[in-house]
């Protein structure tokens, strides 16, 4: 009988390939302003819809609720509170991390939005929902215009 179980295609005559499906994604009009402020000034920007009383952070170009165009960009504090968190012991490839990594959703003060980011300089056992944290930025020379320009959030 010939139904040998072969699980590795490379054990038979095979073809190796690599699908090149690169992409370049822009941040959009509001995203562009947000990341520029992050990189150049170390600031967080938000947009506000006065009619609906919502402050969008990260900023949005249009209000989700009333579809009005939002042009009022304002700086918001670099502080927020941990609204939810998880502690991960493995990296994306499933390898054990040298130190556990704390990921949290941080609701930014004076806004209705927030960021998912890492929380550093804190003992995992002392983590609590409601902990006040502040963004710690990288040196300006090392910033690239990405969310990783914030090194982490740390207890304020």
């Amino acid at each position, binding site marked *: 009988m010939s139904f040998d179980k072969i699980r590795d295609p490379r054990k038979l*005559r*095979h073809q190796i390939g690599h699908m090149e499906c690169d*992409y*370049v994604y*822009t*941040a959009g009009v509001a995203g562009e302003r947000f990341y520029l402020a992050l990189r150049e000034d170390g600031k967080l920007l938000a947009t506000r819809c006065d009619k609906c009383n919502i402050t969008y952070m990260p900023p949005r170009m249009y209000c989700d609720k009333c579809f009005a165009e939002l042009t009022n960009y304002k700086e918001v504090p670099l502080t927020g509170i941990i609204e939810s968190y998880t502690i991960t012991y493995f990296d994306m490839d499933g390898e054990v991390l040298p130190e556990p990594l704390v990921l949290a959703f941080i609701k930014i003060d004076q806004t209705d939005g927030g960021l998912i980011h890492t929380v550093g300089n804190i003992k995992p056992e002392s983590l609590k929902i409601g902990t006040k944290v502040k963004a710690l930025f990288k040196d300006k020379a090392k910033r690239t215009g990405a969310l990783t320009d914030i090194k982490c959030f740390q207890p304020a």
Partner: protein
Amino acid sequence: MSKNMKELPGTPLSGKELKSEKVITFKWRPNAKYAWSAGIAYGRFLDELKAGRIIGRRCSRCERIIVPPRMFCEHCFVATDEWVYVKDTGTINTFSLSYLDADANRIKDPILVAVIDIDGASPGVGILHLLGNVAPDKIDVGMKVKAVWKPPEEREGSVTDILFWEPLED
């Protein structure tokens, strides 16, 4: 664009502007690698082509000899039973003279494509391949042909290890 619309809404960006990195972009190259296996039957078939032979599989239930080989008989729904070497001669089952190349360019000398029933395999079992060393108007259904192989050192375990099929001289 309709005549009432003078310009498209949005913020246009040219490819040049994207590449100049004047705007903030996120680039990603997914690690989408694959290894595609020819399978047990086709793998052996291709290995045998490299050695200058054509191999098939026999189904003991319907008695067919299947070329290219398959590990499963699609008529009987049972596993095929044994390897059988077949000849590198055959009969033209059907053919086509193509005056278009693979990129749909018009060409003067046609590409001669044929389905060849392999001698030693069951009737109607064969492979799609090319004809050569023959005038297009001489090709006919039922013509006997023989494989013209690449020199052994140039073979790589591919159907192109057979260059084409030429008329079999009596």
